[in-house]
């Protein structure tokens, strides 16, 4: 044991695992268990958000017609969706998906599971704070569920919650209040998580795990945590001001006829919301970028192309992400100079994003590709993120925004990035780390079927939205065909809905696969390193890892992507070298290449 290792061992002694049911499965402080808790909570709400999406698609395909099966149960009467119900459906669809489904899966699950395992730590820096973070999150989910059972129903002001529509002027009723409170509470949960993640990465990296040897997944999650720590408090304060407006008669965001003595400023809400909201889209995509950077390299059996370039590009995106938010507000009547500045930064942020994508392609180029399910999902994510990124060029531009703003084109664009890329990135992670989490493998055949339904489904559904928006169909319309100039889009909307239903149905391949492998007796044990890759969670511990993760804290000697090195192959007969692996012969041939 080196002195550095001894120091880290002293800082993180091995504790005995908990024995009681409550301490082990419910109020656990084990980061691996908390990761699983976030996974279950997130996937459950992914189902809720998905069902809400299906209702929206039904409405656009067959407005005024009763929803089959679920309609009478959910809405009573004939079972058709009414305009007031409809606005709650699309509002809660957005909020549930962003804050209560994708965030817990991408950040809660992978942040908790992977940070300690990939950097070589025994747990997070603040295990108890980690537990509080999860149970705070559960409280916020309960608030969301409760909002559906209030008198006037749930929130209806859109996921962006624009004031004054989101004040009592537009949406009186307990539902909207509960949802705003839920966003505040989930923000508190995310902030706790963020502080924990940031500290853990800074303080608990194993000896030798320099910043430039961190797996890209950790870079993505860490940068996300920094954005969360900086901007979630802004959202929290905005939510608090809105709660004051709703319940205590203040007027921060109320203006116009309902305001007394001049009132406040509705645009203030948009500034507060979007200075959080734009970093939020990077919060949701950076972990996926990181996962992709690693998984593409792993399954191409080739080092990541220009690791440093990708890292610095991701850092640059993080820095710029807060300086572009005004492009959501081009139509509010902002000063032209301000608009031009925001447009410039928006165009600039495309440059590091392109570096990341080009590095993915050059990582795969000249590799030796293995088409396992995680790789299929990773490649699919590259595709959908490409579409999402390129369509962003249209919307970052003020001229084109004059026509495209608030159309379905915007909806298609952000679904390609935030829904398709983030969700497929999350599935990449789930398929890849499932063996580490549960010690068993997922079925490859079901996984591939799930991939094709998901990939084609997402592409066709959101492609249909882009087409509809290009023709001028606006978003959030209960009956889009009120407008005669888009009468011709009925067929397109119906087809898009059919694809959406198929996409939803295809998710059952995953549900079956997941339950079979978690609970079934026949799922094959995974072994410590089923994918034959390099990072610490695969090469320095078992699947699933013991409570204390590592019997001995590893000493890292090389970067995360040491593949197909001829020296390593000569010495070990394998095409990869673990991050902490000492090669026979002791001379460190991989060190030179490993500096990446």
């Amino acid at each position, binding site marked *: 044991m080196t002195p550095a290792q001894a120091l880290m061992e002293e800082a993180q002694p091995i504790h005995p695992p908990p024995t009681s049911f409550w301490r082990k499965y419910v109020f656990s402080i084990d980061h691996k268990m908390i990761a699983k808790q976030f996974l279950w909570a997130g996937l459950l709400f992914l189902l809720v958000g998905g069902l809400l999406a299906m209702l929206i698609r039904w409405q656009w395909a067959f407005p005024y017609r009763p929803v089959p099966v679920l309609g009478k149960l959910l809405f009573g009467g004939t079972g058709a969706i009414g305009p007031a119900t409809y606005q709650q459906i699309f509002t809660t669809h957005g909020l549930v998906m962003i804050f209560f489904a994708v965030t817990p899966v991408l950040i809660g699950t992978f942040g908790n599971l992977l940070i300690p395992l990939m950097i070589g730590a025994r747990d997070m820096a603040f295990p108890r704070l980690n537990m509080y973070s999860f149970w705070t999150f559960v409280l916020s989910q309960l608030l969301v569920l409760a909002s559906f059972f209030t008198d006037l129903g749930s929130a209806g002001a859109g996921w962006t919650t624009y004031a004054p529509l989101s004040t009592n002027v537009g949406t009186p009723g307990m539902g909207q209040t509960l949802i705003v409170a839920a966003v505040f509470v989930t923000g508190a949960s995310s902030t706790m998580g963020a502080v924990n993640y940031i500290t853990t990465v800074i303080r608990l990296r194993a000896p030798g795990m320099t910043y430039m040897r961190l797996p890209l997944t950790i870079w993505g999650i860490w940068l996300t945590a920094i954005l969360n720590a900086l901007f979630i408090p802004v959202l929290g304060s905005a939510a608090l001001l809105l709660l004051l407006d709703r319940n205590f008669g203040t007027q921060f965001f109320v203006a116009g006829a309902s305001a007394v003595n001049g009132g406040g400023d509705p645009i203030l809400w948009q500034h507060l919301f979007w200075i959080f909201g734009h970093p939020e889209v990077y919060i949701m995509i950076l972990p996926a970028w990181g996962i992709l950077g690693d998984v593409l390299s792993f399954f191409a059996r080739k080092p990541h192309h220009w690791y440093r370039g990708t890292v610095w590009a991701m850092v640059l995106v993080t820095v710029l992400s807060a300086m572009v938010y005004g492009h959501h507000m081009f139509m509010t009547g902002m000063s032209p100079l301000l608009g031009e500045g925001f447009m410039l930064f928006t165009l600039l942020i495309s440059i590091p994003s392109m*570096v990341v994508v080009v590095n993915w392609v050059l990582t795969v180029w000249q590799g030796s590709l293995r088409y396992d399910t995680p790789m299929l999902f990773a490649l699919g994510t590259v595709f959908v993120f490409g579409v999402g990124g390129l369509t962003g060029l249209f919307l970052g531009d003020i001229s084109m925004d004059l026509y495209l703003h608030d159309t379905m084109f915007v909806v298609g664009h952000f679904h390609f990035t935030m829904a398709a890329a983030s969700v497929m990135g999350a599935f990449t992670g789930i398929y890849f780390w499932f063996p580490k989490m549960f010690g068993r493998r997922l079925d490859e055949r079901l996984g591939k079927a799930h991939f094709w339904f998901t990939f084609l489904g997402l592409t066709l559904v959101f492609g249909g939205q882009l087409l509809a928006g290009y023709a001028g169909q606006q978003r959030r319309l209960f009956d889009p065909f009120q407008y005669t100039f888009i009468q011709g889009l009925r067929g397109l909307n119906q087809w898009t809905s059919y694809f959406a239903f198929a996409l939803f149905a295809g998710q059952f391949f995953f549900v079956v696969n997941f339950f079979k492998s978690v609970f079934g007796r026949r799922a094959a044990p995974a072994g410590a390193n089923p994918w034959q890759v390099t990072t610490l969670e695969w090469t320095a511990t078992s699947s699933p890892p013991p409570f204390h993760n590592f019997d001995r804290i590893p000493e890292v000697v090389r970067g995360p992507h040491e*593949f197909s090195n001829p020296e390593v192959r000569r010495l070990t007969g394998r095409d990869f070298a673990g991050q902490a692996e000492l090669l026979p012969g002791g001379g460190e041939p991989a060190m030179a290449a490993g500096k990446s």
Partner: protein
Amino acid sequence: MRRRRIFAAATVALARAASGAPAPESGFGLPRDASVDGARVDSLIHFTIAATTLMFVVVGAVLLVALVRHRRGHPAVHSHGSKASIGVALGFVGLVALAVDGYLFTHTIIDMRRFFWNFASAEERADTVRIEVQAHQWAWQARYPGPDGKFNTPDDAVTLNDVRVPVGAPVLIQLASVDVIHSFNLPHFRVKRDAVPGEITKLTFQAREVGEYEIACAQHCGPNHYKMRGVLTVLPPERYRDWLSTVVADARRAYDPEDAEARWGWEWRRE
């Protein structure tokens, strides 16, 4: 039965032809452009479609070759990125940034300053039509200044969900909202602007083609947001004058000095 249906369809078609209303559009692609400056937006959109498609095809082709040819049988090359490959990456990104981002930025700056957000030059022209539009849940009220050229006077013409403008003259609209945020969207003119409570925002355009077009609310404003639809009618100048004098005469007759609510207009805001 069948004959009656054909007769009804023919009547509708005839009425439409007589009123000069456009037939429902096919739906796909950009809606018809009825404005003088809208072609600038369209050309940028077409440029961006071409540029992004090209980028997608180039990068996608490289990826596709790798996916097909560099499979399990192909030995992986051990490289963390060479000077040459990093050069290729940076060169590609730099080229795209200069060519595409640069083109978009310069063209948009020109478009916004000279046309879409150039309210000063519309303000200067003698033939400019000024309209105040007040949005509320869920309708558009429009106010024309009448012969005295001043808003909020007894000769103002006021309409609901019915805005008419002459062809070929600049139109300046000032927008307000009484309750929540709405957005005044004219898809056929490639302009939109939010109506924000407590503020006056502006919008300008110039119609090129006579006809009836839809005014859409683009910002979610409550359950009946989808019904917040108005009609913008572009008339030949003389028919516009006739129409305006009729509404002004009606408004004068209907004027009620006691009704303060009806005088929701504001003094025109100049730059």
